[in-house]
């Protein structure tokens, strides 16, 4: 019988948590899925049926390929498994094709790729060394962190209902963070470089990586008071880091450089024509800015300060993805958003450079970079809040102060994801799962830090 337990491997609490959430994900297979489902089916079709030179030019469907090349290669590999499920989904002209086998395949591919996320969570649990509390399993920081990450509400509904592949991408990010904690900087840098070429949204947190690696890895020692010791600069390390990043980028963009398609790739990756805000406004600063602009324009019209003929007909609230002009306040350009973001991340970058506090300081800076980019970025999706929530979970089991900030961030962040699921059958699911996560996170962190 003992052999059976070992064989099933389910005596271990971590495996039980991971298996449990995987089974829940299997139950979510028949739920509503958004247009992102069709997006990924289209990319499977593009990468399977067309040569590389066509990947970033193909425009039969409106959902063109707008992720970096590694993700395209990932879809290519997936498509070779997909052909055993349903050959028809790989036809570029089969728009909105969603047979039951297609659904099954796509959902299972997300669930399967989450294996990387589970591995990354396991590595992160090894890195944190929270308070030494009692022997009770459910009060150990490792247990709480595992639940907060594996059963994260935002990740569950975005990946397994709305449909995206964030699981393994966050797995890569958490793994690179874990490697930096474990002082395996080269691996961390490599993993992050790979991640960037899977989904370029992680550029939001690239400054944190850059500054941390430069300051704490390239300068091998500090002065006794913690400030920088210029003489300890290691050229070897800088060169090796540069080499890693260069090689990864070469692997990713090399083929397209050879085909002279780089401008096209970049225009697909950074579609600035899409407008300041997404169709569903992300709850960031520009949403408030737009709202203020709208209010002022209404007041202006009422008080006859504005001429009705000068006001543009289309508005930001029409739910379309386009560029708009503001009516009262000055219009916002991509450059302006970049400057705002840089100003916002400057304090944390300064701290990371002048007063490095090791990996924890890096993690804080990373979270702040993610949050600042979310607040001030151009065309931010609501789902980007997960970029701030997941790293913050690692901090939350360390200090009580971090825990309370984490609770506010995660509860409001998850609540802001509600509009993603607007169908009636999914309403109980999102309420129940939200309650589950919120109640658990508040109570467990409170118990941990009582």
């Amino acid at each position, binding site marked *: 019988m003992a052999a059976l337990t070992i064989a099933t491997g*389910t005596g271990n609490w971590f495996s039980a948590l991971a298996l449990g959430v995987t089974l829940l994900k299997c139950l979510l297979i028949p739920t509503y899925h958004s247009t992102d489902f069709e997006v990924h089916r289209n990319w499977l079709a593009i990468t399977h049926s067309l040569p590389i030179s066509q990947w970033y030019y193909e425009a039969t469907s409106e959902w063109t390929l707008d992720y970096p090349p590694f993700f395209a290669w990932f879809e290519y590999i997936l498509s070779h498994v997909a052909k055993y499920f349903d050959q028809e989904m790989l036809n570029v002209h089969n728009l909105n094709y969603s047979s039951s086998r297609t659904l099954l395949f796509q959902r299972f591919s997300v669930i399967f790729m989450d294996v990387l996320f589970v591995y990354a969570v396991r590595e992160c649990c090894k890195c944190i060394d929270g308070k030494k509390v009692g022997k*009770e399993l459910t009060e150990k920081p490792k247990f709480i962190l595992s639940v907060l990450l594996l059963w994260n509400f935002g990740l569950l509904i975005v990946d397994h209902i709305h449909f995206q592949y964030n699981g393994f991408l966050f797995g890569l990010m958490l793994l690179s963070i874990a490697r930096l904690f474990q002082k395996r900087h080269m691996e961390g840098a490599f993993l992050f470089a790979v991640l960037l070429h899977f989904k370029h949204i992680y550029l939001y947190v690239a400054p944190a990586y850059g500054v941390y690696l430069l300051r704490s890895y390239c300068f091998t020692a500090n002065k006794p008071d913690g400030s920088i010791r210029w003489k300890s600069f290691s050229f070897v390390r800088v060169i090796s880091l540069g080499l890693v990043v260069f090689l990864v980028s070469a692997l990713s963009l090399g083929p397209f450089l050879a085909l002279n398609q780089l401008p096209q790739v970049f225009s697909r990756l950074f579609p600035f024509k899409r407008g300041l805000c997404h169709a569903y406004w992300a709850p960031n600063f520009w949403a408030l800015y737009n709202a203020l602009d709208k209010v002022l324009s209404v007041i202006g019209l009422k008080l006859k300060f504005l001429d009705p003929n000068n006001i543009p007909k289309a508005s930001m609230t029409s739910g379309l993805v386009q560029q708009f002009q503001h009516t009262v306040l000055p219009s916002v350009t991509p450059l302006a958003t970049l400057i705002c973001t840089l100003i916002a991340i400057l304090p944390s970058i300064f701290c990371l450079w002048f007063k490095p506090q090791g990996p924890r300081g890096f993690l804080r800076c990373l979270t702040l970079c993610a949050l600042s980019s979310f607040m001030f970025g151009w065309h931010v999706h609501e789902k980007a809040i997960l970029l701030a929530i997941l790293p913050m979970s690692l901090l939350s089991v360390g200090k009580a102060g971090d825990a309370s900030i984490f609770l506010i961030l995660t509860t409001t962040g998850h609540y802001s994801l509600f509009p993603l699921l607007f169908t009636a059958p999914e309403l109980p699911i999102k309420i129940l799962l939200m309650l589950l996560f919120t109640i658990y996170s508040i109570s467990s962190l409170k118990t941990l830090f009582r």
Partner: protein
Amino acid sequence: MEKWYLMTVVVLIGLTVRWTVSLNSYSGAGKPPMFGDYEAQRHWQEITFNLPVKQWYFNSSDNNLQYWGLDYPPLTAYHSLLCAYVAKFINPDWIALHTSRGYESQAHKLFMRTTVLIADLLIYIPAVVLYCCCLKEISTKKKIANALCILLYPGLILIDYGHFHLGFALWGVLGISCDCDLLGSLAFCLAINYKQMELYHALPFFCFLLGKCFKKGLKGKGFVLLVKLACIVVASFVLCWLPFFTEREQTLQVLRRLFPVDRGLFEDKVANIWCSFNVFLKIKDILPRHIQLIMSFCSTFLSLLPACIKLILQPSSKGFKFTLVSCALSFFLFSFQVHEKSILLVSLPVCLVLSEIPFMSTWFLLVSTFSMLPLLLKDELLMPSVVTTMAFFIACVTSFSIFEKTSEEELQLKSFSISVRKYLPCFTFLSRIIQYLFLISVITMVLLTLMTVTLDPPQKLPDLFSVLVCFVSCLNFLFFLVYFNIIIMWDSKSGRNQKKIS
């Protein structure tokens, strides 16, 4: 209680799993002309709302009893009426007389699922939570784990209508275990008036309460208790059946609908003795109706008599729960017109003893889910059933470390094996045998499931796989019947004292 938040999380998990499973297809979806049990529930709302009470159980031009006629006691009818009022408020087309037959829409499915979820939330889940909290001699963590396992039991999640009767029965057990005999009996009477199959549990309730009255002394407090209980039972029955007591014909017709003795020994494929016997010897066709009735009656009562007599003579809470199991199992195996879903009436008491014999209970609950495989496949619930079974199994293994609890002591077979060893000194390998049986059973179940799903049955034997499933489950159930009876008969006060001393 401390760790209330973990219990809340467990309840939320239970609710989430129930709702996500209910997003799948329902029984009889898109299958005219008869559809399935879902349509039956909708039809009862239609009947009870549009027709006067006197016509509910009678065949008429408005109420065709062949098309899902009401065949449950009045409380089900009242519940359907309540749901019908809500349905009328949202969309009257759902319950319009005649025209709403076979009505299927996304909104209606949502409505039906929501009524089921609310029913579970109000009656069944609080009973489970309270029951687990009232368990004695186990830690808070184990109580919460126990609640999780009970709420994750696949059978009750996959069978898609509200389990009011099981909820009420659970309140009944809870009341009686906590010495609130009157409330417990009231709850159980309501359960019987909701679904007549609860009569499977009636004997243990009766014997236990009778035993309690005897213990208190029939000349004093015991007699008072007996009278009070009798009054409660009679009062609750009268209250529920009031509209039907006005005429003798009404009452008789309702009874005829509830107990259709004309239907035969069994219908379809069910994992009980008669169906399995039928494979070898077609008793359904050979023997005349009344002989079949007598045969099933006698065998049922013979198999449950020992346990019930013991319960009257030595009433104990533990004996009560185990007798519930063995009694319901006897009825399931030997009774008349048993439906596959009736295994749930056995599963509920087994869930109650999960904390005492985790290994055997988990095994039983897995077999009970497996025995419903043909039904689940018909309703296209393969994925949810596999997923929930695995989730339940993992929950039980992690919470109770069941594979480490297979010694004789843990299986409550110590006194039995001591008695046997008086005659057969070499009888020391009981737990080893049971472990091997478990392995064989699980492997058989997995293999049969795979075969049923992937292969097509041969032309000459189209029902081969369903019959095999029923046969294997029946063998397992017979083993469990013997096991539970052994526990009951060999459970003695001295055994419990020994445990306290050591």
